[in-house]
């Protein structure tokens, strides 16, 4: 049963979206900032994760720095073919996520491959299988993100 986050949970959720101190007992350090014991911080973080309020806790990596290539792609898929095209696109293990969006370009997915050259070859395979054009939108520049969810 999911419990609603209380005020202490909210302050913890807000604090944990900022960087964890790089020290031996980082949760004790956060506890000192918020007036909580290390044990209480850990208990609450465990519960918030179990309840699915926090999906993940750990390092955020620059995807490209991990090696491999990523590319946002879009297709304009006629409604009658949509499910068949989706099945063909999703069958590729290189397709990391895929969203239907309300636009003439109505299918948007990310390709993740080992090397930059593979992006074009997977896109060409999808074009051959579906008979539809795949537009490639590789990132040319990534901007620093200040995103935080206010709990």
């Amino acid at each position, binding site marked *: 049963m999911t419990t609603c986050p209380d005020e202490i949970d909210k302050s913890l*959720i807000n604090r944990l979206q900022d960087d964890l101190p*790089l020290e031996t007992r980082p949760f004790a350090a956060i506890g000192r900032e918020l007036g909580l014991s290390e044990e209480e911080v850990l208990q609450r973080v465990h519960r918030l994760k179990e309840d699915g309020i926090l999906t993940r806790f750990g390092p955020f990596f620059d995807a490209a720095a991990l090696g491999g290539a990523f590319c*946002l792609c879009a297709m304009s898929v006629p409604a009658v073919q949509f499910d068949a095209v989706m099945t063909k696109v999703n069958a590729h293990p290189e397709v990391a996520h*895929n969203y239907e969006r309300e636009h003439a*370009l109505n299918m948007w997915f990310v390709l993740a491959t080992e090397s930059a050259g593979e992006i074009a070859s997977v896109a060409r395979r999808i074009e051959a299988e579906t008979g539809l054009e795949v537009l490639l*939108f590789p990132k040319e*520049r990534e901007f620093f993100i200040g995103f*935080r969810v206010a709990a």
Partner: protein
Amino acid sequence: MKPDAIDRKIIEATQSGLPLVAAPFAAVAAQLGLAEREVIDRIETLKRAGVIRRIAAAPNHYKLGMTANGMSVWDVDDAQVDLLGESIGALPFVSHCYRRPRALPDWPYNLFAMVHGQSRAEVHEKCVEIAGILGKACTRNDVLFSSRILKKTGLRLRRKED
């Protein structure tokens, strides 16, 4: 910087998350047969190099009421897009912000910013805020809402030998 073999082990061991224990870096070190100091030092180096952005929680926006998100897209003057992109990325309601190539004639937009809000109306309001920052440098814009998640798998570091 290119992560070496030990860095890659640390990345692999932590990419699904850090152990939620009192001494998480010691736990990672024990798992990999390294000293805690070495794990902390290497993470510090990876952070300085930008490979690790930060160590933090990823909240579920949906469970915190942020149920709407839109991919806002903007046609921004090429001479100004990099500077303006920094301002848009720094907004607290933007979770991703990239400059990407246009695909003319169908797609005139070169700046992409994922905007989150409690409703579509709120996303539209945030887009008005972005439009205000971009000013005359932006001639056209649109916002694409997702109607369905068709596939979602996490991005994972893949081993070369796989």
